[in-house]
């Protein structure tokens, strides 16, 4: 009896891991192998050297596209935060029914393909769209160019990414012990000081999660900035696309992709050391 138990305890049970094999195979074939390919190409196309990296890292155009990418991602992240935080707060301070309704609306746009959402913005902001018509009606004529600008791509990305921010902050807010708020009130805190000294710091983990997630997804965004953004203000993913599709410069494209990957991993690594990656998805 005792021996059986100790033998069971000694030998790790490998069976559960077997359940992971289909997924692992899938990831290997469709993700790891192509990624490895890309990494190899970045050093070998057109010839074996660091030339691609050198050009990307020193070229003015490339630097500018990377800067532009970070600026846009930063702006999108900040906008998501400014929209998401009050909304998450609202969801935590209305009746359950209303909260569920808002949650439904937020997640509904979450479940719509972002290609569809991107096209929806094209229709809305286009020259024959309702926004331009509305601006004309109130006397802004000619209406400013809305589509194919940094404004339109940022707006659409905020729309697409805000749910990540909202869900992250909402979850953290929900977990705040109401007794902490009561205790702050009993100690003399109210209104703004209560928010600044107690509520905001308690929600900081949600803010950090949401921001990292939105930023990291945003710097790799392709479809939305390409379809809605200004061609003169490309983001990295868009530039990679152009390099490969138009110039067949596989080496340059690959080098940029690897740099983007390294930056993303670096952000996640810093986040992991500070908060732990397992918290990222709430």
């Amino acid at each position, binding site marked *: 009896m005792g021996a059986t138990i100790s033998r069971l305890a000694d030998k790790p049970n490998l069976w559960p891991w077997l359940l992971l094999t289909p997924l692992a195979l899938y990831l290997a074939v469709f993700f790891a192998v192509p990624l490895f390919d890309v990494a190899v190409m970045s050093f070998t196309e057109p010839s074996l050297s660091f030339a691609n990296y050198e050009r990307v890292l020193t070229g003015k155009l490339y630097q500018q596209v990377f800067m532009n990418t970070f600026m846009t991602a930063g702006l999108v992240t900040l906008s998501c935060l400014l929209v998401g935080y009050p909304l998450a707060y609202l969801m935590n301070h209305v009746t359950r029914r209303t909260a569920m309704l808002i949650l439904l609306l937020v997640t509904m746009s979450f479940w719509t393909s972002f290609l569809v959402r991107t096209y929806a913005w094209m229709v809305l902001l286009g020259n024959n769209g309702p926004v331009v018509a509305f601006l004309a009606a109130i006397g802004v004529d000619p209406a400013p160019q809305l589509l194919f600008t940094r404004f339109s791509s940022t707006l659409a990305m905020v729309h697409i990414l805000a749910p990540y921010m909202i869900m992250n902050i909402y979850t953290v807010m929900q977990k705040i012990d109401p007794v902490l708020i009561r205790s702050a009130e009993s100690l*003399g805190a109210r209104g703004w000081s209560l928010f600044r000294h107690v509520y905001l710091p308690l929600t900081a983990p949600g803010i950090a999660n949401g921001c990292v997630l939105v930023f990291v997804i945003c710097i790799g965004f392709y479809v939305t900035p390409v379809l809605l953004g200004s061609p003169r203000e490309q983001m990295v993913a868009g530039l990679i696309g152009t390099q490969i599709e138009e110039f067949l410069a596989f080496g340059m494209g690959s080098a940029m992709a690897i740099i983007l990957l390294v930056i993303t991993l670096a952000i996640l690594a810093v986040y992991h050391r500070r908060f732990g990656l397992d918290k990222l998805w709430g």
Partner: protein
Amino acid sequence: MNSYLEIKNITKRFGDFTALHEVSLAVEKGEFVTFLGPSGSGKTTTLMIIAGFEKATSGDVLVQGQSLSGLAPYQRNIGIVFQNYALFPHKTAADNVYFPLQMRGYGRGEGLEKAAEMLDLVGLKGFGDRYPKELSGGQQQRVALARALVFEPSLLLLDEPLGALDKNLREQMQIEIKRIQRRLGVTTVFVTHDQSEAMSMSDRIVVFEQGRIQQAASPLDVYHRPKTRFVAGFVGESNLIPARITDAAAGKADSPVLGNCEVKANGAADGQDVTLLIRPEHIRLSREPVDGRKNARMQVDTIVNYGDNALVMGRVGDLNMRARVLGRDVIILEEGDECCISWLPESVFVIEQ
């Protein structure tokens, strides 16, 4: 003359459930009052009404003659220690204690100095830089206490603050809280469902049951002169014996099981149905009846030996009785034996309700 804290005819309804019925109480300055009662009896609700987190359906709370009803919690200047401590996890112990001072406009230097003094008083000198999660349960408790006291509140409220601590630590904290409360002279309301905690700490115990105050009296009064059967049963161990007063003036009662009993005379009238209370430690065990005491024969069912003392449970007729005796007095006895139990007439207290 008004009392320091007055609770006047507080009724609290949640929907059609009445959690508090016409609760009234007066507390003197510097007094340590304990709300004692089973879970759900309305202790927390009363505390939250005093603190301003719940609104009474009717009635009023006054401190020094001033009604609190128009004041929000943050205006009441009442220190509260919650059961789970409710320390701010993102602030160090010192910053937690500084927080109420910060809210009152103290500068950081002066505020932290006062916070450090208070941490010193609760026995946490040098722990100011720790975060709550780096402190043990008892230490967190002390920080919560320091934080609730540092701004010189008009009242200190504690809601089952020791519930999460183990027995040794709880006893240590009971003594600590009492020491600090005496030292600062702060008027205190302490909530617990633990009767020994209430007995050892309080100037006065207020016994709650089903939203009503059953009795408000000193610990010894509550123990020896309980007003109701409920109080007698809830505070300490008890033998409760149904009886009828036959001659109030002579202190005589008649019990279906025990027959004629001498009792301590008090207000009950002739012919009134009452309950007789005999505390188990007032009962003596013997082989033969003892002169000068009321004797009865008990069938012993169970003996629980604690070493220094023992609990002997058995039956007299169809009445369950228990006696608590010195450990050495129980050696002669075995479960299943019959023995004699006896008590003095003055050990029998008459409960009218």
